[in-house]
Every structure is written in structure tokens, then in C-alpha cells.
């Protein structure tokens, strides 16, 4: 499902024109990104939580060439699904 399909799906469920849904989606993503950018974690009830994690720097060694490379630290977005979502996903089985 890509962006367009998502928008149309949401639009059909909300009984709103796609343009408006698109606008809402943009507003949501912008807010979402900004908050993440400010190192805030965002939790959505029943779905999961997003947070920023810092991956520490590490030393990686190429197994063949034995070249040691220092991997710098970095910040990544991590998503943890909520147990509710997990149950929903695995309800079939």
C-alpha cells in the first residue's frame, strides 16, 4: 500500500475528500518528524511507540581483510509495536 492508496483508504473511511486527507497526512507527518527530531518519543495507544535511539560507536572488523573500521555513533528511529498490535497481528494463528 503506497501513499495514494493509504490516502484513498483513509478518505473513504473518514468520508472526507482525498485532498483534505492528504493535507491531514502531511500535517501529521510533519508534526511527527519534528517531534522525533527533537528527540521526543511518540506513543500511539494500541499501535506502538516511536523513539530515537543512539547507536554507540563501535569497531567493526572485516572478517576477510581484517580491516578494522570505526563506525561512528548514530541516531536511529526505532519502532516498538504495542502488545495490542501484536495480538491483533497474530490473531489468526
Amino acid at each position, binding site marked *: 500500500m503506497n501513499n495514494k492508496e*493509504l490516502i484513498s483508504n*483513509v478518505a473513504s473511511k473518514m468520508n472526507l475528500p482525498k485532498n483534505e486527507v492528504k493535507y491531514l497526512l502531511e500535517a501529521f507527518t510533519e508534526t511527527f518528524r519534528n517531534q522525533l527530531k527533537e528527540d*521526543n518519543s511518540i506513543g500511539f495507544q494500541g499501535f506502538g511507540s516511536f523513539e530515537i535511539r543512539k547507536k554507540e560507536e563501535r569497531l567493526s572488523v572485516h572478517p576477510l581483510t581484517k580491516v578494522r573500521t570505526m563506525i561512528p555513533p548514530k541516531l536511529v*528511529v526505532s519502532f516498538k*509495536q504495542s502488545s495490542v498490535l501484536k495480538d491483533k497481528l497474530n490473531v489468526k494463528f
Partner: protein
Amino acid sequence: MSNAKLSASEIVDLMVKNRMITKKSAEEFVKVFFSVIEDALKDGETVKIKGLGTFKSQWNEARKSVNVNTGEEIVIDGYYKAVFIPENDLRELINEPFSHLEPVELNPLSDNLPEQMQDDAEEDEPENFSEPLEPLRVFGEQAEEIKELLSEINSFSTPKVRSNDTVKENESSQLPDPDEKTEEEITLENTPMDKPESVSEVAEIISAPETLHTPEHTGNKEAEFNFDGFDIVREISTRFGLPAGAAAVALINEESDQLPAEAESETESNISEVLPEEIPENTVAAEKHEIDDREAEDDNDDDEKQEKFEEIDDDDETDENEADDETDEESDEDEADDETDEDEQLIPEDDTEAEDGDDNDEDTDETVVELPEVVTQTDEEAAETIEADNTAAKEKSVEPLVAVKNARTVTDKKKIVSTSSSHKRRRHYHVEEKKKRPVWLYTLLGIAALGLVFFGAFYFVKNILDKQKDAMYMEYLADSTVRALNTKEVLDSMTPAGDSIATTDTVAVKATDESVQTVISEAPAAGNIFDAPRNYTELITTEKMVAGSQLTKFARKYYGHPHFWVYIYEANREAIKDPNNVPLGINIKIPKLDARLADPASRECLNYALKLQSEYLK
């Protein structure tokens, strides 16, 4: 606001604040948005959201685990897990604080390098010239060894000689400059200066010893000189219990032009009535002076210890060296008849020395030429160590020439004590000679042999090719001769009109019916189809020449290969005067060709077409 935990409602509030959105619609949107994603994930779909990333459900396999409390083995069932893969855009945005950091390759050597170098320095003595202190230690150790050797040797010698040696040894070990005088010695002495000498000074110094040598080299006294010098050596060697050799190390730094030199001649009126003349020459770089002093010490130790003539070690093999060696050998042989064995055997060495002196004189600023002659094992060892040191020193300085010079002794008169050692010496000398020459001789021979083999192979291949060509040509001749007869019969029933010129040629030539001439004519070609006259009556089509048209293009189009343009040309000879310049606007007849004649897959066909082409394009 950092590190705050936001909930959906807070997000909604922010959305409403930033955009002109009603809170209601925003709340509803968020709710629906996630429910849609949920549904999609449940169906196993992936959801891609612009500006965020991708949600997808991922199957985690069942795995075994152990209950930490009970120790029981439990199986964790496989399950679907919703995962979120952020877009690159989002990832970069989040990682902005660290975006300037790049993975750095670490060179494992760089960390340990200093340690390793030090280890090397301690393990491999000759290689640690990079550190100024190490070579000194090396030389010091060598000096120690040499002293030990010396004491051993002295134990065999007569007390007087021993005392003399001891005195010298002490002096040399105490003084950095090899500056030796004893009461019994008449010395002509130039000590190496602490300050570098100019070249002219060096030349002067060297000229002094040289004058001593010139007569012995050329004059009638040669034999006597050799005789005497050898006697001394022999005597000393017998006295010391082993043949002795002394080595002196000279470092020459060309760049600096600083050549401290030492020339010594000593006359000893000892028991042996020996008048030794020692000419160790040291040319030393100023900055290496300390090292050189150590070396000089070593040299002197050697000299005094063994007091003798000597071996010249050559690090830099120059032509001069080789030339000298050869000369020595020749003169050695020449004089073999006239002189006694002992004299004769001495000649090479003395010559070497004399010439060596000359070389030194000439080459002071350039190279000190050394002649290699290892006499004894001790000498060899000494030479080796010195060589190693020299190599080290050489590598250290930019363009240093290292020369191992010999100290030698020349006496007024003395008797021959034994001949055995001289034989030994001579044999050794020749062995050295033979060892040395083959290295470059064989290299030259090897190169020459390679060249010969190469040219041989080249001509061999060429011959084979020629033979093949000849064979093909002979075949072709035979073919055409046979065919000439056949063609003659065909000719009668054939109309000349519409034939190509080539065919006409064939006709003309064949009319003469001389097999030789037929052979020469090119028209009949190999292959059954080729010699038949071509008759372009059947046409595939006609093409109009327009700008950009080419016969070769037509040939490719209709016959499958551009080389067959020649047949088109043959079919249109009336219209085309010059195949390179076909007039525009004319209609080109594209003749129907025998498949055997224009087979793009057949090499024969192509070759024949090429042959025709070269004919038409003359």
C-alpha cells in the same frame, strides 16, 4: 521538550496548532490512519507513507528458549511483528547531529608501528640505522668482539708483537680518531679530522700513500715489493696462527664533499723488521662522524690485530672493480713464468692495492673503489659485519658510497717463511674471482640467449606462415589450371555482354590457354562458384542512390555482409565509373546472387569479395 513522551492526543494538539485543522478531524484522522495501517498489516501488506517510512509485518520464526526461573526449555512460537523502516529522508533528519561522522578505517600497523620498529632495531642490528643510537651500539659490540678475537690471537703471538699490538689497540680504542704512533714507527700520518676536510686536502693526503705505491706497481721493484709485503703477511699469519686480514671501513658521502681521510704508513723495526704501511682511508659524512670513528676503531683493531694486507670488500660493484680484478689476474698470469710462486701469488694483491690507490686518487669525490679479496674466515666474518654496517649506513644517508678499504703493510725486506699459506691465499683469490664474474657474465649470457630464442621463435613462426601461404598458393595454382581448361569450354556458350570486367579478364587470359598465364591471372578464384562468370540478369530489386546511400549498405541489406558490394558494383559497371564515387540519383541494380557466392558465413566468399574489392579499388 526533549525526551518527552508524547501521546497521540499531544500529536493531535500539535497538528492543530501548526496547521489550520480542526481538532476533531485531526483526532479522527490519527485514529483512522493507524487503523488502516493495522488492517493492512494484518493482511500482510506493507504500508508506505511518504515522509515517514514503511510499516510491514515481519514473521519471526519460532525458537527455543529456556525459562530463566525454572530452567525448563520452552518454545517461543513464531509471530508476526510490526516493524517500521524509516525513510532515508527521515533517517538523515534524525541522524543530523552525527551526520558529519564517517566510518574510519583503522590501520592496525599505525598503532603498533613504533614498537615494532624498536623490536626490529633490537633484533636486526644492521637494519636499525634509522635510529642513531643503535648503530653505535652495534659498532661497539663489534669492537668488543674484535677485541676478544685480538686477545685470542695475541696469545699465540710473540710477546713483543703482542705488546706492540696491545699498545695500538689501547690507543685506537681510546682515541676516536685512528691516530697511532709508536716509537718504533715512522709514520706518515693523516688523521681524520673531526671537522670535515675539503676535497683538495683529501687528494693531497691520498697522493702521499700513492707515491709509495706507484713504483711498486710499475718498476722493477715490483717483485721485491710483493715479495716483501707477502713476507710480512706470511710471517704475521704464521705467528698469529692464522692468516690474518684487516678491514677498514670508509664511508663516503658524496653530497657533503667532506672527506676526512687517513693515510698512514708505518715503519716497524720490530723483530720482524717489518715496515708496514697502513692506508685506511675514511671518507666520512660530517653528521656520521661519530659512527665513523667507531668504524675507524674497528678498522684499526683489525689492522693491528692482523697487521696485514688485505681484503677489500666491495659493496658497490663497479666496472672499475671488475676491470681491476681482470687486470690483476692477467698480470698474475703474465708474470707467473718470471717470478717465484710466492711472488707471483702476491702480484694480484699488490697490483690491486696500487690500482686501488690510483682509483682513490681519481675518485676521491666520487667513489672509492674497493677490491674484494677475502683471505681467511676471520676476514670474511669481519667483512660481512662491516658490509652489513655499510649497507645500513648506505641506506641511511642519501647517496653515500661505502667502501671498505684495506690497510696494508709494505716492508723493505723480509724472507719467505712458508709457501703454503700463499697457495691458500691464491686459491682463495681465484675462487673469489670466479665467483664474482659469473654473476654479470651469466646475466648477459642469459639475456643474449633469451634474445636468440625469441628471434628464433619469431622466424620459425614466420616460416611456417610463409609455407602455409605457399601451400595455399600452390593449391590455388593447381585449381586454376584445372579450371582454366573447364572455363574454356564454358566460354564458347557464354555471351561476353553483361559479364564483369573480371570475367572478361578471365576470358582474355584463358583464351591464351597458357596454364602459366592462367595461373598468374587473378580472375579465377578458389571455390567452384567463384571462377564461373557472373551473370547479373536476375535482380532482386533496384535501389536509388540518395545522399547517404552506400553500396556496402545495400550489400549488407541484401546479402548480409558489406563486403559483397563488389557484386553490386559489377552489376552496375555501366553506371558506376568509380566505386568510391557513385553518382547520386541513379538506380542501382541489386543482382540476385548465388547463395554459394555471397554467403556471409563463409570465409571463402568473404575473402574472394575482398580480393575483388582490392582489385576494383586500385
